[in-house]
């Protein structure tokens, strides 16, 4: 009830700021384009827009970034449906049935189903965020340095789960981020570390590194790819779903939205996992599972509701605990810090009005997304034809200007370029960038709280196992860290056993 009243106050506050609502509109529009353009990730879109928020009011900046986030996650489905080119990894699940529908001449229906499902998934996840966030923040208020350290370790443990193909490469990326996070002033003694006497390095240049890793690296990657744009040859037709279509998908949409939201709350599990899990569940529940992959509209609905259901869920640990679940929320956490706002349990006490205005704004973003998508899908679909010969230099110029804008310093631009080169090599080596970002964000939190807890316990390490919440979080971290390796080992053993039992099966 308190949350509802606070939300109404937030909505009233938001309605009084037309320019904040304009930022939400701009963010969603940009997100749609970024998501629809293959090769441009949502993280890249948010990283590029981050410097634009520097001079803005916190609410304006956060709505712009949230709009890019939401629009981007949805935008990926447009090219997935029309061209079988997923704009984002999550949209790969949408492409399975979406493109089949396009080939059957049902492109408009697929786009309409994707839009309505994304809207529903997103709104449900934001509602869960609104009502769960204050409760979680209230609980987290009990945390002292020991619990905060354990929380940071738990956040870091998800590196293994966001490593993609190789745990080794993910860990390497994560530890590189942790080491990088030690550059600057020592959190307790205030002594410079690894600064080489340069005052610019007294704090880690977090945002230029982000822009380099996600934007400049992508621009370098584009240089090596073909500059031919995908060609759209399909007639789209009616987009607005009919009543019968809605009746056919509503069950799938609600179930998938719930799955997406739950997965979003788990740090490290992103929209791609949510989309595929929701798709799998929809197929399992379906009366005609054989139609999946051949143009089942429930397949499109499940993937989109799952992916967008993730968005509000992913913001929950970021806002209440200060733990980003993925690269996008890590960048948004950077945006909050840039505005002088510290995410975490105290956020609701110190900036309650801002938080609930933001929540109202997040709901507004999804309403804007629904309207904008239904009205402008045809034009967005044509934008994918922007050639890379224009996109690549544009991204680079925005990266340079964005990195400079943070501190009016060419030093930051140099850092951005170095991060871009390293980020490009990481892409080529298959080393994910997200663990590095997580290490960068959570490294200082882990170190400073560990040392504080140690000082408070007068040099005794007892706090690691005598405090229930700390011990539980550390145990959860151990499980999270070793679960992927254990599962991979089991799979390998099962496969080896299969080969040993049926030697002929190998051929």
């Amino acid at each position, binding site marked *: 009830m308190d949350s509802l009243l606070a939300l109404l106050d937030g909505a009233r506050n938001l309605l009084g700021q037309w320019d904040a609502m304009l930022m939400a509109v701009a963010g969603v529009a940009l997100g749609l384009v970024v998501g629809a353009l293959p090769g441009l990730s949502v993280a890249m879109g948010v990283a590029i827009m981050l*410097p*634009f928020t*520097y*001079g803005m009011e916190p609410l304006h900046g956060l709505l712009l970034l949230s709009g890019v986030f939401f629009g981007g996650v949805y935008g990926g489905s447009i090219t997935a449906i029309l061209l079988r080119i997923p704009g984002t990894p999550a949209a790969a699940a949408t492409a399975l049935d979406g493109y089949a529908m396009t080939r059957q001449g049902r492109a408009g229906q697929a786009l309409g189903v994707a839009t309505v499902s994304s809207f529903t998934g997103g709104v449900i996840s934001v509602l869960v965020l609104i009502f769960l966030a204050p409760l979680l923040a209230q609980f987290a208020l009990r945390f002292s340095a020991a619990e905060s350290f354990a929380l940071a370790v738990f956040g870091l443990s998800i590196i293994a789960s966001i490593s993609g193909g190789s745990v*080794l*490469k993910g*860990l*390497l990326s994560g*530890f*590189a981020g*942790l*080491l990088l996070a*030690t550059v600057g002033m*020592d959190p*307790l*003694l205030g*002594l410079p*570390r*690894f600064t080489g006497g340069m005052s610019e390095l007294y704090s880690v240049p977090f945002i230029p590194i982000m822009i380099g890793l996600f934007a*400049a690296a992508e*621009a*370098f990657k584009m*240089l*090596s790819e073909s*500059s031919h744009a995908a060609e759209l040859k399909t007639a789209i037709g009616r987009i607005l779903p009919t009543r019968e279509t809605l009746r056919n998908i509503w069950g799938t949409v609600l179930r998938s939205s719930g799955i997406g939201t739950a997965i979003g709350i788990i740090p490290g599990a992103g929209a791609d996992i949510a989309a595929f899990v929701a798709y799998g569940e929809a197929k399992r529940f379906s009366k005609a599972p054989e139609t999946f992959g051949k143009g089942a509209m429930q397949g499109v609905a499940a993937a989109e509701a799952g992916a967008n259901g993730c968005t509000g869920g992913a913001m929950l640990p970021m806002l209440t605990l200060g733990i980003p679940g993925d690269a996008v929320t890590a960048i948004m956490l950077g945006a909050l810090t840039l505005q002088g706002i510290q995410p975490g349990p105290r956020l609701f006490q110190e900036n309650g009005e801002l938080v609930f205005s933001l929540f109202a704004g997040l709901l507004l973003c999804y309403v804007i997304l629904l309207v904008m998508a239904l009205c402008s899908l045809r034009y967005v679909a044509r934008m994918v034809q922007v*050639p*890379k*010969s*224009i996109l*690549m*230099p*544009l991204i*680079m*110029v*925005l990266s*340079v*200007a964005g990195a*400079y*804008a943070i501190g*009016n310093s*060419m030093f930051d*631009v*140099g850092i951005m*370029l170095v991060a871009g*080169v*390293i980020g*490009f*090599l*990481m892409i*080529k*080596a*298959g*080393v994910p960038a997200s663990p590095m970002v997580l290490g960068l964000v959570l*490294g200082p939190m882990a*170190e400073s709280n560990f*040392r504080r807890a*140690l*000082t408070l*316990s007068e*040099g005794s390490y007892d706090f690691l196992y005598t405090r229930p919440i700390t011990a539980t979080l550390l145990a959860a971290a151990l499980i999270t860290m070793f679960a992927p390796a254990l599962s991979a080992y089991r799979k390998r053993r099962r496969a080896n056993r299969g080969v040993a039992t049926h030697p002929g099966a190998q051929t």
Partner: protein
Amino acid sequence: MVLNEKKASGLIGLMAIVSGIAAIITARDFPPSLTDTDVGPSIFPTAYGAILALLGLVLFASGSRRASKRGAADEGSTPPLDIAKFVFGVVGVAAYLWIIDYAGFAISTIIYLWLMIGLMRGAAGFRQISTPVLAILIGLAVYAAFVMLLQVPLPTGLWLDSAA
């Protein structure tokens, strides 16, 4: 010369080893803690550096082992990249940043955009009238967005400063 996943992994592994060892050596010079209850400023960087170097070594070694097992067949497993293109891209941006100091953001950006769009469009890129038009329009739009909309003072350059 091409850069595939194997070579890039080796390079990243090598960079991790060097960074990790450099961090351990540098952290040895950090002053000790003032109290007995604090582990001091060097413990965390040393631990991270050691683990990073170890992971880099494993990545480097596993890459070499895989390479010797698979031989030349592995070369084509990931899309190759012309290293010259990448080096050109990096040098291009570095030159762009260098020129910004002298010519300012607006002029340097237009020149950079014109060159990059022209080169990426292929042989006929510079002959198309749309190339300079796009360069000017995009360059001015970015400049206006930052300077007028966001009130961020982008560099005006030494030449313009001295002329003023």
